[in-house]
């Protein structure tokens, strides 16, 4: 099916173009350390082209019968007469939406990076890796079978590692990159187990085939449950759900545009995407869906509490991301693909905007510490405006996009999991509070630092403005139910009905109230200071301690798991084995040989009479033998 008679194979270019950009830029890193400009043009050009193609794809999918485009691929591996693995592209509404998100955010972040990373000596390396990441993420959302999805999944993880540890001469960055990779690896084990399980039981890894098999009941319930659990484990790793969330705050060591692209909008959304992609399997294993909901809901409030007490803007935003991802999982589990992906769609734009805004603030003040900012609304008006819009959207204030997506999640949760609904409502309050705490501490009051303040260059402001538009309006895409119906759920109704109709029901007012309370509380605490922050901190000091120490999760992981269980337990068992059994065997062999040698050496005593004795004794023995025969 094609529009304008363009063959559908052109979709391969969507991920091949950024890959080509990587291929062109990467070999130039060593020979041309100083020259910078062309690399960014190549990279941005590739992404722009991909964006164009993605828009075309979205329109095509809309008009295709069954909302599906399959692009046949090529045979990658055929083993004898047995298994065959091919790689093709599957473009359904889910992929089309994701393609749009990834390309738009990648484009805006790269434009922003031109200015932000301008003076960085590793400019070339930066754009090479960004292109690699974009290519991998695009491939991930288009892959038609789990095997290649896994390949791109790992590529995305690799790019994340490379970009978190971009400034590799900084030890904290190196440690953070390692932590990210290792923790997501734990999740990837689950993913791999799920793949193996599905392949051995269902005989195929093709996604559409798996869907029909799962819906048709051809795969047994136990297999589906374990496979879904494995897939969710992978999603937990990439999307930083509890208890695999510890890597995301540390990942803020990377450059801010990287945080915006990878750890706000796209890579962390890969986990949510995986669950959405394999949703029929989850539907067929409802217990797993409950687990998804519970973990999502818990993560949401868990992370939100930690975001309350951080002093580093990026850390607040990181915990916010974890919390919002939890809400996405909750939405997926209770409301279906439409609800979850709608939330993802909106979140990507305003979260990326928040991060880029934080980068802009850093560009002006040279720090990310909230305590050294204040009063920046006068010096950075554009940044302030965009950041505030994104904050309002995150908090879920009508009529911005965040309101609609949060609404959808809350209403579906109320139906299925009332307890989690309560938690989600509290989370909404905390979310509004912490983000406006940031807004008021950074932009309100008077400047507490001593830096030369100036607004960011136009190259950095343009993406902010570009992202502010969807931050405001992307929610309206579902006003007539079009978005959700595209993804298979929901009904269509008129635009105005969707925009205001919600306000006629009681539930949205609860969430608006929670959000409004949060904003008000933040205002009260930080602007006129009717409530003293210190007083609150003192009253809730034990809770405060728990929050700031991140529930002691890092100590748990590094001290207990890594330190005791793995290092002293498993590793020392292996070390004992290596020293005593393996080295013992090898050294023992040598000792044996030496010992045998020592023994045999005794025959060379240098004593003539010994030789004579042995000769005669030998002869006599021979004679005896012959005689006794």
């Amino acid at each position, binding site marked *: 099916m094609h529009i304008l008679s363009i063959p559908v194979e052109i979709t391969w270019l969507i991920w091949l173009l950024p890959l080509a950009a990587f291929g062109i830029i990467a070999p130039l890193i060593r020979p041309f350390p100083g020259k910078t400009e062309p690399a960014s043009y190549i990279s941005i050009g590739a992404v722009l082209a991909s964006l164009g193609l993605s828009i075309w794809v979205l329109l095509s999918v809309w008009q295709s019968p069954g909302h599906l485009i399959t692009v046949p691929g090529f045979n990658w591996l055929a083993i004898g007469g047995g298994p065959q693995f091919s790689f093709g592209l599957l473009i359904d509404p889910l992929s089309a939406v994701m393609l749009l998100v990834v390309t738009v955010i990648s484009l805006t972040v790269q434009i922003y990076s031109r200015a932000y990373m301008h003076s960085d000596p590793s400019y070339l390396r930066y754009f090479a890796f960004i292109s690699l990441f974009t290519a991998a993420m695009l491939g991930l959302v288009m892959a038609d079978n789990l095997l290649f999805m896994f390949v791109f999944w790992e590529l995305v993880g690799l790019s994340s590692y490379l970009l978190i540890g971009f400034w590799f001469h900084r030890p904290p960055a190196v440690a953070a990159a390692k932590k990210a990779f290792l923790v997501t690896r734990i999740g990837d084990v689950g993913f791999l187990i799920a793949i193996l399980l599905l392949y051995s039981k269902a005989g195929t890894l093709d996604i559409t085939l798996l869907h029909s098999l799962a819906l048709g009941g051809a795969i047994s319930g136990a297999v589906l449950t374990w496979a879904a659990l494995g897939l969710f484990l992978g999603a937990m790793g990439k999307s930083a759900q509890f208890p695999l969330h510890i890597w995301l705050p540390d990942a803020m060591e990377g450059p801010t545009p990287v945080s915006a692209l990878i750890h706000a909008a796209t890579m962390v959304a890969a986990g949510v995407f995986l669950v959405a992609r394999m949703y029929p399997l989850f539907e067929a294993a409802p217990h797993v869906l409950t687990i998804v909901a519970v973990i999502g809901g818990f993560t949401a409030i868990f992370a939100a509490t930690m975001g309350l007490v951080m002093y580093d803007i990026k850390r607040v935003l990181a915990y916010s991301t974890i919390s919002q991802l939890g809400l996405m999982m909750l939405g997926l589990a209770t409301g279906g693909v439409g609800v979850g992906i709608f939330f993802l769609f909106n979140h990507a734009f305003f979260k990326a905007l928040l991060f880029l805004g934080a980068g802009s603030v850093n560009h002006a003040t040279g720090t990310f510490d909230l305590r050294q900012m204040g009063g920046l609304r006068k010096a950075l008006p554009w940044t302030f405006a965009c950041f505030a819009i994104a904050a309002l959207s995150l908090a879920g204030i009508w009529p911005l996009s965040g309101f609609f997506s949060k609404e959808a999640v809350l209403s579906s949760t109320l139906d299925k999991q009332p307890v989690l609904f309560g938690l989600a409502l509290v989370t909404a309050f905390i979310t509004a509070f912490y983000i406006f705490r940031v807004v008021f501490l950074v932009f309100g009051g008077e400047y507490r630092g001593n830096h030369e303040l100036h607004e960011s260059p136009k190259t950095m402001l343009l993406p902010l403005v570009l992202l502010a538009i969807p931050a405001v309006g992307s929610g309206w895409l579902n006003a007539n139910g079009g978005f959700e119906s595209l993804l298979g759920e929901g009904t269509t109704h008129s635009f105005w009905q969707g925009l205001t109709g919600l306000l006629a029901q009681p539930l949205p007012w609860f969430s608006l109230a929670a959000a409004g309370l949060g904003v008000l509380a933040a205002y009260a605490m930080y602007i006129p200071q009717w409530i003293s922050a210190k007083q609150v901190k003192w009253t809730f000091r034990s809770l405060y301690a728990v929050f700031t120490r991140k529930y002691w999760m890092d100590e748990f992981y590094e001290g207990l798991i890594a330190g005791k269980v793995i290092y002293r337990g498993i590793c020392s068992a292996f070390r004992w084995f290596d020293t005593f059994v393996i080295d013992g065997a090898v050294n023992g062999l040598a000792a044996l040989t030496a010992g045998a040698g020592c023994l045999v*050496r005794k025959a*060379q*005593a*240098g*004593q003539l*009479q010994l030789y*004579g*004795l042995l000769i*005669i004794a030998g002869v006599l023995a021979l004679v005896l033998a012959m005689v006794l025969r």
Partner: protein
Amino acid sequence: MSVGLEYYLILSAALFSTGLYGALAKKNAIVILMCIEIMLNAANIALVAFSRFSTPAQMSGQLLVIFSIVVAAAEVSVGLAIIIAIFRHYKDINVSRINLLKW
């Protein structure tokens, strides 16, 4: 009773064993050489006895003994020369202490 072949052979065996014991057990190099001579003598006795009792006409045993004695003489001279050379070097003829062949 007449002394037959067996008597000489038993005597030869007895002398040989005595020489063998001495050659293997003694420390003094010269004594070892002496015991070797005893062994050679024992062999000579046996040869002559066989010659006398089995083939008296050909006297082949006696011929062999002539050559045996020649060889013994040559061997003793060279052996003693070696012992004297060793004595000059080590000032000692205790064979258990001359063990350069020890690995």
